[in-house]
């Protein structure tokens, strides 16, 4: 039986005696039997009721710990006392209300303590409240009770998402799951794959091909992903030179002149560009340009051969029924990563502006490793309006700017134990600090606290579905062979 103990602002304390199968994260319904209104509350913490004399009991049992004995308890009173001792106190947060069966945000009233009826919301009722429609959504996981949770595609479409949690908790797993489901629904996705763990999503764990095999295109910059100077364009090239390779403004002006001249003559090739730079009379400018140009050439990302060059529009055309372009950034140095991302973001912006692309879902793992400062705000504002819907995936919540958190529509929060990380997430997340601090700390691997529009603003703990695809996200182990032999 559950009863209201206290209500203070947004916090409701509930006493549960005898204990029921209610866990942190579960939802309770506080029904006012005199009206058709109910409060929807979520258990964020649980503990024992401070029963009078419990301290005495504990001390007494410690005094008699070493005793051996028999209790002739004909009435079996002990079981009743244990019920009292185990009485639980739930700290809950008000998440909404039900008014005549409809979800409402009006929580300005409080239910009567004496007559309210409390019950755990079964999965089926909760899913109904979330307006969860499995048939149209992305099937991503289950509730503790086994109820299937699917994300309404509209809550992802056009939205900014953050997936965060400490290492090994299942962030990338969720990201891959979302990616696969979006692709299967016809979405176009681009992944900045920092660890090369998305490149085999077209394969099953047994190395067979999945039904979506053809929809995954993996490109490795400098290898099967090269672009011509003409395709990259002066703007991208200059931004790379200036922002990533720190080309001084004077030298940039000279480079612009050289580029335009070669382009006008129809002679914009790497060789000609090299020669033109070497012909610059000012030694300082020549040296500055040459060093940067050579470092770009060394990446092998630029080519004069249209045959081996990649044209993004052509790649996108292949994904007209949905697909994912995986940019494999593994084993690529930091500057090169930034160059590739700079190029891609510029090109994608152009494509979106020109309606060459309707919209694209961008999955950015550990974006702080390659995303230029000025791009953060651009991604969450301008690019978002153009149709680039980003999902940031990180285990360093402080690497994402506060402004990005504030703009986020959905946060998928995995386990964090570090105080500092929790503080950052809780400050920025869209719910109260207490919920984040308590629930995120206790989430087991592959369990995620979902916050935001994705579940109709009801924070929910969801166990993420497993994948049948080959994920390659596992860390390589030195002693893995030994482990296999043993098992």
């Amino acid at each position: 039986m559950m009863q209201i103990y206290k209500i203070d602002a947004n916090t409701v304390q509930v006493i549960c005696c005898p204990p029921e199968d209610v866990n942190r994260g579960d939802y309770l319904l506080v029904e006012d039997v005199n009206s058709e209104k109910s409060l929807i509350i979520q258990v964020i913490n649980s503990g024992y009721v401070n029963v009078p004399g419990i301290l005495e009991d504990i001390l007494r049992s410690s005094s008699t710990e070493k005793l051996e004995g028999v209790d002739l308890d004909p009435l079996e009173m002990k079981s009743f006392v244990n019920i009292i001792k185990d009485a639980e106190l739930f700290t809950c947060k008000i998440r909404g209300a039900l008014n005549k069966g409809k979800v409402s945000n009006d929580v300005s009233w409080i239910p009567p303590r004496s007559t309210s009826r409390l019950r755990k919301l079964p999965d089926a009722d909760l899913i109904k409240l979330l307006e969860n429609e499995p048939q149209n959504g992305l099937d991503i996981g289950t509730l503790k009770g086994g109820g299937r949770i699917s994300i309404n595609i509209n809550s992802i479409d056009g939205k900014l998402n953050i997936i965060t949690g400490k290492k090994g908790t299942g962030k990338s797993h969720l990201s891959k799951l979302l990616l696969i489901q979006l692709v299967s629904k016809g979405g176009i996705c681009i992944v900045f794959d920092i660890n090369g763990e998305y490149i085999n999503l077209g394969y099953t764990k047994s190395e067979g091909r999945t039904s979506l095999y053809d929809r995954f295109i993996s490109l490795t910059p400098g290898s099967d992903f090269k672009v011509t100077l003409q395709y990259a364009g002066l703007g991208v090239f200059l931004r790379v030179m200036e922002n990533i390779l720190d080309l001084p403004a004077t030298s940039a002006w000279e480079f612009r002149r050289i580029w335009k001249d070669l382009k006008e003559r129809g002679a914009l090739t790497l060789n000609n560009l090299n020669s033109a730079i070497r012909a610059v009379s000012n030694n300082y400018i020549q040296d500055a340009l040459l060093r940067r140009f050579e470092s770009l050439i060394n990446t092998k990302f630029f080519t004069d051969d249209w045959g081996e060059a990649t044209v993004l529009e052509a790649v996108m055309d292949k994904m007209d029924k949905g697909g994912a372009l995986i940019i494999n950034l593994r084993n690529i140095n930091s500057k090169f990563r930034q160059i590739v991302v700079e190029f891609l973001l510029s090109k994608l912006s152009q494509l979106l502006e020109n309606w060459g692309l309707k919209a694209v879902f961008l999955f950015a793992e550990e974006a702080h490793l390659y995303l230029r400062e000025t791009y953060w705000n651009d991604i969450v504002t301008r690019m978002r309006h153009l149709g680039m819907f980003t999902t940031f995936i990180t285990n360093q919540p402080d690497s994402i700017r506060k402004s990005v958190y504030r703009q986020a529509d959905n946060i998928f929060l995995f386990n964090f134990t570090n105080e500092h990380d929790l503080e950052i997430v809780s400050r920025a997340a869209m719910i109260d600090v207490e919920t984040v601090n308590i629930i995120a700390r206790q989430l087991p691997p592959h369990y995620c606290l979902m916050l935001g529009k994705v579940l109709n603003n009801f924070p929910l703990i969801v166990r993420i579905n497993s994948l049948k695809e080959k994920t390659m996200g596992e860390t390589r182990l030195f002693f893995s062979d030994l482990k296999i032999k043993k098992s």
Partner: protein
Amino acid sequence: MQVLDFSQKSPYNFVELGNASLKNTIESSHRLRNIDLPTNYVGDFNKLNEHEFIANFDGENLDMIKLAYIDEKAHIFGLDTSSIELGETSNGLLCAVRGTIVWKDEVKYNYTRYGPFIFHVTENNKQFLYNKLRQMYFGASRAAPTPDVWCMPGRIRNILERWLQAQLSQSCEDSVILWDGSLTAWTIDSPVTLIDDMLRMARSRGNVVLAFSKKTKFTIFGRRIADLINNRNAPCLLDLDEIIRRQYGNYLCFFGRVYAAKLTPSQFSFRLDVDREIERETGINAVQKLISNDIVVESYPETLRLAHILSRFSASEIIGMQRLIAENFGIRTVFRPNIRQILFGPYGGGLINNKVIS
């Protein structure tokens, strides 16, 4: 030395009568005639009502007995009981009693705990309950006057305690048996025979009964007895028997030789009664066995301390029993407003919460 399994013995009638009282199935035809009694009536060794003795002596030297630790193995048995009011009902009160026997063998402490036994005592059933229990456990054939309903928890507890004492007397051999309280009784009360029987039974099996009283206070010429013994080296006994008996022998029945006991160097000393019918030296030797075989802290034996701890009811147990009664017997305790609190509020003094538990 054999230690019997006490868990094989159970006061079944406590269960049956308790359940009957809760189910309200005790017929009015069972009721005995109601007799009003003064509330300060002291019955069968009610230890809650142990009186303060004021002993006068004319400069006599009190006999100080120095105790020694001896290398003689002995089993130490102790027992204690407790009662608690669980709340009021519309026509009476609910109470629970529990008792524990604790014993120490050469290695460890053991216990058997009896209860709780829960009773619903009303004006209608109190006489039947009390006399039925007395009849069943003491073999008392004559109906005894019953006290006020509020005194009944203590009376039922006393019966349980006497039953446990009898079990120990009949079961133990060559042991030291510790009672909580004293071996003094008002001569007017019938259980005197019972106590006599129990002590005789214990003696016949080579046991010595020692009774420790925490509550009795002796004053001699205005000085507390503790002051007389505090300066002495522990362990020791102070023989007060002659002085006390000289003054109170006409009113009280002393089944024990009365001592003040200081068993460890501490600020506490207790009244200790040793079965009078055994030889004085045997009694003193039993105390020496006690201090040599049991742990004694602050002059009080661990066996008795554990029996007390195990018998006492905690607040959570009280709530648990109230729940049991409500669920199994459908009896709800009622709340009676605290008149004192209502009238005087914070200026009422004394306990804010009365005994009624709602």
